[in-house]
């Protein structure tokens, strides 16, 4: 309307509007970044600035090593403080992305003389990268459906609980940077697809390289993008842009991926990558066909097609045969266990107990969807519909992305994390389209210049039956009324209408005013619910560092800091080269916090070794002592929750020790520990159970605490109450008994007569006696 009076500055007004819009978007993006960062600080505020859980401690330790010794030492790092006596080549078996990122940040800060400790940098890496991730989401969604959808998606991602659960301050894990890398790689792919620029294609390969560095989940990218390319080809959307987006990615990306030590030749040898090569071939064939089609006459082309197809079939057949032969020659068909369990959800529980024993590898339950993505679950379908109108290359990609990630998240809880960005993008699109429609119809019905209170009255006056009379009619009706009020006297004046009516026909897709307003309010309410849920989830559900437990009782907050208490004890009061045996869950923490050598840790690369510890834990005291002694173990650490009711203790994990141990050493039979199909520790328990090391170490002198030996986790009295340890002695128990550390007693002096017998026995069954799997390490 401003243009009416002054047509000259019309262009400048739009330019101004654009500039203002850009500035506003930048401001909103900055605020989104701040939001993403600060919503993840609950853990620091409620607890402290500390590394969380298990794996982050390993990453923290690696980062410390990196910052102390430099990058070259890091690549060559052979860690002799874990997997004793095997050790572990850290440099070659770790995804270095996260560590290098945090190490670089630390280095830059320190060279600017900003003295932040490595720990601080590690704690805050995840929140910083989630801000980056929400910006990347903005870019990706902007490429798909414009900046409005981008902003909506970014703000949703900034606080989606699923992502928060993996990226609160202190959760220093691969996923923290990998999600950013994932989204950014997708963005660059879409950007290349939209622009056809080789520059972006190169960037895309680099982003993919970063993703490969960061997380094993990169296989998701290298399978999803080929699938999309295939989809585009099949639906006849092949274009040179598609070729530029895909071909450089495969070539450069595979070369770069092979540079990462942990991937190496896997980038061309394992089945996870084969899809990309297959599609690479296909896209070249298609490109060739298009090219030939361009230079041949239609008739010639037909001849050529029959020729090529017949030859192509033969070549394809040969290639496929070679591939099949290659794949079949490897025992798992070239697929790693975790990937296989993705394709067949029951695979892990059937064949690999060590994968099945990790709770985050279990399939999720329905409530966890609601917990983790909340209202997004309902917005996603709307987003998918919005993506189909109209369907473009980029919107078909996000549709494919959401479909695949929904499937994967259904297999493994942990992959919910991959679903979250997709759900945010879809919901962002849905929300933005809905807002567009609703605000559009409101704006059109309120017209440009009149004041809004008038309109509100008008709409109230408007007869109800008009609502059913079709959208356009309704719009006109309102305009009529509005103009009539404005014109006051000249109600019948026909010439009065056109100027307003010209605007009136603006859009065919117009909803009635009340409907739009109500819908808008409902949408805002939905958003508010989402925000409330996210803040609640961030504050209550996902911020516990798990090494410190708190409980709210009547006399205030009670802190259970037993883990660090005992790690501190180990670190200060045992010899620096002592070996500590515990179940593998506590391996990373023990090496990182107590700086002691462990037998097994959370990097479960050697099943036999873990099975050995499991066997020792489920053997009677003497046999266990022999196994541990042969491993040079000085201390045994068990986690016991029976006194205060901490449920995830070693007795509850005991079934995995038996299962994994029994999987390798058949003399451990699960049935021996089961009574009526259950692991019981009460008076009904089997004698094997009551005599195994885990039982004894957990319940040693437990009965003296209350006289009955009531276990608060299992809610029962223990079966065997009074017993003595002959080969172990208690050296430390933490304040709430959550961690108990025992020392192996030195071997008794040998009696002359027995010594001979023992000696002969030892020589006969040495380390190599695999045939006699009775006592594996003696």
């Amino acid at each position: 309307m401003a243009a009416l009076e002054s047509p000259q500055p019309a262009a400048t007004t739009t330019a101004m509007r654009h500039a203002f819009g850009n500035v506003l978007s930048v401001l909103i993006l900055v605020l989104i970044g701040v939001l993403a960062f600060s919503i993840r600080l609950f853990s620091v505020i409620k607890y402290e600035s500390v590394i969380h859980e298990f794996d982050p401690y390993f990453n923290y330790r690696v980062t410390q090593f990196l910052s102390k010794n430099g990058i070259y030492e890091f690549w060559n790092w052979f860690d002799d403080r874990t997997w004793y006596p095997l050790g572990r080549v850290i440099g070659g078996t770790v995804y270095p992305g996260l560590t290098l990122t945090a190490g670089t940040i630390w280095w830059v800060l320190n060279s600017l003389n900003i003295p932040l400790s490595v720990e601080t940098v590690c704690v805050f890496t995840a929140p910083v990268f989630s801000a980056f991730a929400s910006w990347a989401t903005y870019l990706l969604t902007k490429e798909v459906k414009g900046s409005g959808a981008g902003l909506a998606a970014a703000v949703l991602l900034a606080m989606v609980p699923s992502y928060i659960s993996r990226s609160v301050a202190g959760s220093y894990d691969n996923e923290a940077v990998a999600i950013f890398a994932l989204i950014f790689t997708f963005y660059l792919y879409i950007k290349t697809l939209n622009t056809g620029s080789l520059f972006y294609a190169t960037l895309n390969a680099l982003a993919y390289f970063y993703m490969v560095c960061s997380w094993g989940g990169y296989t998701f990218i290298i399978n999803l993008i080929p699938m999309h390319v295939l989809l585009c080809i099949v639906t006849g959307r092949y274009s040179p842009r598609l070729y530029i987006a895909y071909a450089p990615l495969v070539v450069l990306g595979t070369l770069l991926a092979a540079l990462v030590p942990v991937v190496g030749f896997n980038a061309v040898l394992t089945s996870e990558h084969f899809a990309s090569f297959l599609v690479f071939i296909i896209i070249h064939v298609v490109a060739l066909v298009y090219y030939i089609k361009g230079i041949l006459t239609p008739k010639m082309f037909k001849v050529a097609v029959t020729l090529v197809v017949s030859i192509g079939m033969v070549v394809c057949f040969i290639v496929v045969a070679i591939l099949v032969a290659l794949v079949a020659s490897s025992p798992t068909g070239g697929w790693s266990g975790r990937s296989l369990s993705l394709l067949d959800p029951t695979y892990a529980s059937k064949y690999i107990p060590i994968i099945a024993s990790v709770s985050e590898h279990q399939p999720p339950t329905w409530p966890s969807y609601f917990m983790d993505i909340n209202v997004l679950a309902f917005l996603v379908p709307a987003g998918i519909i919005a993506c189909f109108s109209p369907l473009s290359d980029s919107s078909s990609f996000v549709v494919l992305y959401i479909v695949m990630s929904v499937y994967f998240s259904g297999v493994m809880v942990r992959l919910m994390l991959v679903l979250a960005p997709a759900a945010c993008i879809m919901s962002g699109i849905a929300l933005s389209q809905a807002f567009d429609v609703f605000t559009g119809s409101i704006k059109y019905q309120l017209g440009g210049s009149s004041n809004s209170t008038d309109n509100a009255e008008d709409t109230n006056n408007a007869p109800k039956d008009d609502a059913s009379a079709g959208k356009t009619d309704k719009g006109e009706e309102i305009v009529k009324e509005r103009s009539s009020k404005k014109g006051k006297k000249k109600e019948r004046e026909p010439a009065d209408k056109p100027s307003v009516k010209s605007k009136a026909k603006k859009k065919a897709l117009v909803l009635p005013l009340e409907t739009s307003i109500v819908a808008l309010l409902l949408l805002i309410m939905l958003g508010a619910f989402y925000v409330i849920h996210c803040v609640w989830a961030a504050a209550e559900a996902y911020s516990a560092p798990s090494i410190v437990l708190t409980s709210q009782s009547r006399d205030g907050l009670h802190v259970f800091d037993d883990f660090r208490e005992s790690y501190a004890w180990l670190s200060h009061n045992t010899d620096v080269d002592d070996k500590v045996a515990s179940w593998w869950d506590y391996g990373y923490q023990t090496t990182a916090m107590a700086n002691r050598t462990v037998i097994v840790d959370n990097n479960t690369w050697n099943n036999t070794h873990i099975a050995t510890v499991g066997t020792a834990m489920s053997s009677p005291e003497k046999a266990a002592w022999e196994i541990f002694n042969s491993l040079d173990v000085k201390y045994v650490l068990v986690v016991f929750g029976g006194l205060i009711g901490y449920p995830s203790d070693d007795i509850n994990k005991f079934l995995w020790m038996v299962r994994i141990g029994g999987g390798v050493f058949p003399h451990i039979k699960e049935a021996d520990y089961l009574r009526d199909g259950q692991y019981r520790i009460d008076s009904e328990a089997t004698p094997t159970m009551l005599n195994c090391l885990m039982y004894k170490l957990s319940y040693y002198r437990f009965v003296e605490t209350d006289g009955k030996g009531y276990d608060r986790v299992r809610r029962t009295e223990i079966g065997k109450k009074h017993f003595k340890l002959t080969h172990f002695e208690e050296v430390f128990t933490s304040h709430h008994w959550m961690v108990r550390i025992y020392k192996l007693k030195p071997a008794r002096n040998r009696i002359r007569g027995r010594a001979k017998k023992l000696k002969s026995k030892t020589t006969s069954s040495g380390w190599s006696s695999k045939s006699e799997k009775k006592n594996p390490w003696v």
Partner: protein
Amino acid sequence: MKQSSVVVVDLLLLLLTIAVIATPAFSDLVLSKVERRIDVTSQFARVTKSLKVVNPGSESISEFMLTFPKFLGNNLAYLSVKTKRPLANLSVKKADPKGIPDSISVYSVALPKTLSKGDSLTLEVVATFTNVLQPFPEKITQGEIHLVMLQESAQYLSPYTVESQSLSIKLPNARIESYSKLENTKLQGSELKYGPYKNLPPFSYSPIVVHFESKAAFAVAEKLVREIEVSHWGNVQVTEHYNVVHRGAQLKGEFSRLDFQARPNPRGASAFRHLLARLPPRAHSIYYRDDIGNISTSEMQSDSKKTELLIEPRFPLFGGWKTFFTIGYGLPLSDFLFASEGKRFVNISFGSPMIDLVTEKLIVQVVLPEGSKDISVTTPFAVKQSREIKYSHLDIAGRPVVVLEKDNVVPDHNQHIQVYYKFSNINLLSEPLMLISGFFVLFITCIIYTRADFSISKSSPTYLAKLQWDEVLATLQEVQSIIQKCLAAHDKLEASLRDLSRTGDFQTCKAARKSTDSLLKDLSKELKPLLGFLQSSPSASHISPKVEELVVKEKELQEKLMAKHTTVVEGYEKKSSGRDIENRIASQQQKIIALRQEIEDLLEFIDEI
């Protein structure tokens, strides 16, 4: 066990040598009265002596010799000699005079005034010894009580004749296992008394051993690093890193938490759980942590006189157990920084704020603000000094650090030290200015980057394409503005029609029509070259059809509008009724609205490009 036997051998040697050399060496001073008190209620032995010195000889004397048996002298942590009247601290230094056996440590005290014949003087000596309470037995189980042994001499070891002397030992109020019984030995409650003994020759010595239970915390900091960082923004930040060990009898066998919790008194008496730190008043932002995170077991009480921090290590410390922790706190600058003679000085306590803590190696680092000059330190006792540079928080030159080191520090060393330096307030602003200029440069670079043309090749196809595209965009804008003008003209025409319906004055309406006609003609003339350019430009190939469509639509709209105008004006001229006219133009009206809508859609589309 080994250590104590060594001590016993030492003692024997000492006795032997003393017997061999009966040196009348030193001056003729006589100690007319010696009173010694040994306090062993804590983990160290604090010896207070009052010596009445008389000079019976003729020479005037200005030096006094203090002697200790070597095994005590080696563990001497703190020694101060005072006179009561006049109140003065006397300077003490280690001496090595000839004729004194190796088994005796000698310190020489410079007297405040020379003693001439017959003069007398009373010296107050305070000496603190660490490691002299030997745990015996050296290893105990969790349930056993903690016994320690003190070895001393019942008679004051002195190179001078002692006329009258007495010794009292203050023991902790607990069980006493055994003590040497000499003549004149009395045990009153927890106080053990030897003496008085009269007229003993120089170097008299009679060893005594007291074996008793100690409940004191044998907390020893093997190493303590105190970092005191002075910031002229108003804060003194103190960070203290403790490596604490329990130096009592070592724990042997199991540690049972059950026994410790259920029967703490017999089954955990040898352990200590708490340490008490007495911080300066107005200490704030106190934290207590170790290298794996915050330690939640601490309590703080503060009033205007002091701040008391009761800290509990992560686990109770039994004999031989070690732990590490860090405490930190901020202090208001105004309480510790003073100015004198154009210099500033920090006046701050040297030792650890922990009560009854012995520090084996104390390192105090006073970090002064960047740009401090002329640094000097005064300390009440001798310490090893050195200088370092510390880089922190955007420093360029680094902050000067005064490093003071001292071994074997006891609470008696908790005296104030002064660090003098010169500092100009301008330096305070350097870092904020640096930050401001940094951001300024960043923004300027951004502005320059977005405004300037950085393409390397001016003839590359992409660059040319970009230039062309810019031109196309400019043309598009012009086209848009022209169309907008046309639309405005249409609006004017409509307005004139409205006026007509109100006033019925069709002459003005016709005039308006004429002016609009000419305006529109001009505009369409302007539009032609632009359209030509768009058609010819290759990069506008996908837009030009839209633009053409727009122009065509606009033409159509114009025609329709004109037709409507003519109809209406004619209608008025013929004076036909309003309803009639309305009926006649109804169909045109609809088309106009549709066209207008289409044009606006097209405009929007172009706008989005």
